[in-house]
């Protein structure tokens, strides 16, 4: 029903650039996540789509309408806010009904639709309470119900889970995923939490400093990060990044020497690899360094060491035992290695 298109969209405040030349096509029924650290412009982008923020330059299309000049109410979208924006003077029922009332939906339909929405988010028992008498998770569900009660073109969600505790976050996340499946609406979801992005998204847009860093499916972003920023932002723990030199397929640095890499690249580069891609070796290893710390995680053990000035983490079996200061030897499969340009941070495409 609603494809959303952003063409060269920019947002500036005086000299400060919030969003710079943002181009993106969002397909109908897609679940798109805008991911990035705070201040990267992801919320601003969403607020521009909602019409809560003026657009300095560019065009935003929802369906086949150019919405640049339209008021939020005329864009036919609904939104879940970070702190929910519930109306404190109305009951839960009235809160959910509010969009129907102000949009002059025939009164006869109200009750049925409110009940349907509240059933979907399991709020039936709380309809006569006021928001102040609800827990955080319940308030969050009221906000969701208010968003889904009418059937808008698109849902916008601005960090909807950030005010919930860890346990509730997981179950609500599943609920949102399920709602999207049921309602089949275009959804744009803003978060700084990469796990939320990975679990929810059809596609993820990673942003930093107002610029798109990479657009792709969660797996693309995890497997082939476009630059060191994305590499260091996605995954837990983030990808290890080590500075060094590469010559004839051999990467060298302090405590590290990896061979079997691409021979097309020469000069200073940044080598990236994930903690789980490293394996312990006996001798003649790629990395040989004293242990800096050992962390027991339960299902695995994390050891870290200083390599070329950076702290590098690797994941080993849960039974592994070693003392701080012991020298450990590690091998990395060349196919699991990522090469980035040292100065620009961009991924260096290598064959295979």
């Amino acid at each position, binding site marked *: 029903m609603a494809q959303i298109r952003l063409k060269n969209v920019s947002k500036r405040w*005086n*000299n*400060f650039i919030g969003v710079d030349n943002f181009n993106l096509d969002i397909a109908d029924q897609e679940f798109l996540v805008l991911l990035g650290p705070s201040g990267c412009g992801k919320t601003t982008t969403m607020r521009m789509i909602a019409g809560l923020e*003026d657009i300095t330059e560019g065009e935003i299309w929802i369906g086949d309408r150019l919405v640049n000049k339209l008021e939020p109410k005329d864009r036919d979208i609904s939104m879940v806010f970070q702190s929910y924006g519930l109306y404190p003077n109305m009951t839960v029922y009235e809160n959910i009904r509010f969009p129907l009332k102000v949009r002059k939906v025939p009164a006869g339909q109200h009750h049925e639709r409110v009940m349907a929405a509240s059933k979907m988010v399991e709020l039936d028992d709380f309809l006569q309470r006021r928001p102040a008498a609800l827990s955080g998770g319940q308030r969050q569900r009221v906000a969701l119900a208010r968003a889904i009660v009418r059937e808008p073109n698109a849902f916008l969600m601005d960090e909807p889970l950030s005010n919930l505790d860890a346990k509730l976050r997981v179950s609500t996340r599943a609920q949102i995923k399920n709602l999207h499946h049921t309602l089949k609406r275009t959804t744009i979801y803003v978060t700084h939490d990469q796990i939320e992005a990975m679990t929810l998204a059809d596609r993820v847009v990673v942003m930093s400093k107002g610029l798109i860093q990479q657009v792709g499916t969660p797996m693309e972003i995890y497997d082939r990060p476009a630059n060191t920023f994305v590499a260091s932002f996605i995954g837990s723990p983030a990808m290890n990044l080590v500075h060094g030199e590469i010559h004839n397929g051999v990467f060298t640095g302090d405590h590290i020497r990896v061979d079997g890499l691409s021979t097309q690249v020469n000069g200073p580069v940044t080598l990236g690899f994930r903690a789980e891609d490293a394996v312990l070796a006996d001798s003649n290893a790629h990395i040989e360094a004293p242990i800096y710390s050992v962390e027991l995680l339960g299902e695995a053990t994390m050891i870290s060491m200083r390599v070329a000035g950076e702290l590098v983490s690797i994941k080993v079996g849960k039974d592994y035992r070693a003392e701080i200061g012991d020298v450990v030897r590690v091998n990395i499969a060349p196919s699991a290695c990522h090469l980035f340009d040292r100065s620009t941070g961009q991924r260096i495409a290598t064959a295979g």
Partner: protein
Amino acid sequence: MPHKTFFAFILPSLIAMVLFIALPIVSVVVQSFHVEHGRILVQVESCQPFGGCTTETRVDTAAMAELREEQPMGRFNGFGTYLNRGHLAVDEIGAILANNNGIGDIVTRIYNLPLYKALAFTLVFCFVVTPIAMALGFVIALAVNTVPKMVKGPVIFFSLLPMIITPLIGSLILYWMIQPNGIIGANLRVLFDDPTLSLRQSPLLTWLSLLFYGVWTNAPFSFVVFYAGLQTVPADTLESAMIDGASRWERIRYVVIPHLAPLATFVALVQLMDNFRVFEPIVGFSAEANATSLSWLIFNDLSGDAQLFGSAGATSVITIIGVIILLSPVLVRTWREFNHKVV
């Protein structure tokens, strides 16, 4: 928010402020460059049947009324009003500086010029009352903070009274008490064993009683603000100071006072602004013989039978310049912060 919506919301308020604050300021400036029309005199010959004729000079009321009708503001006077004896008194000051018997003489003679007399009291009032009231307010806040909750309410209630009381009424209440036949005045006579003692007689005592009134009415504001500030002093910092070995006084000195410093700037600013317009106490205390203020000068020009708009205008402009000088540190700081934020 779109510009159109913003202005739709703020327009009524903006119109009120432009019409009744900005324009009057312009009107005051224009008035200050004008002065009342001189009298138009006519020679009238009046002849009596037996006494012959005498010529007499009279004010031509009809012509004056007409002139007033044409130019209600009076005639243009340029900076004349600003420089005359009633205001900056440039000539008089020049004469005093040229011919005097030392510093003391200069000060006394300049003090006798009306504007400088008013300015002296206004500034003294500002810069004596504000710090004393703030210090007193701070001490009250510290004291109230230590007493049980049950006592706090009533203490705050009584403390608020001197602040919210109408200034004219508050000063009248105090004035009646310090009169020779009021309770304080009578007791002071006994205390100093001086049956002629009267706070109104000596300029010094008048000033002191006005300053006392100022502190009395200003202290509650500092108290309330500082008291609220005390509630936000981080308990962790206080307790770590205790563990580090700070005494009661050192905790106040190194934790509480730095924490309240931004509030103190705010209080000082508000109170300086309010004290600069000191006016009602002078009316209430009937103190104009010994103490006047800039605001009182304007009031006096306007409330006489002949309303001296030019003179009031000039004093007003000088007062406004004074306010801007007082505010300038704040304005400069805000300006810098604002530019900093933008860059």
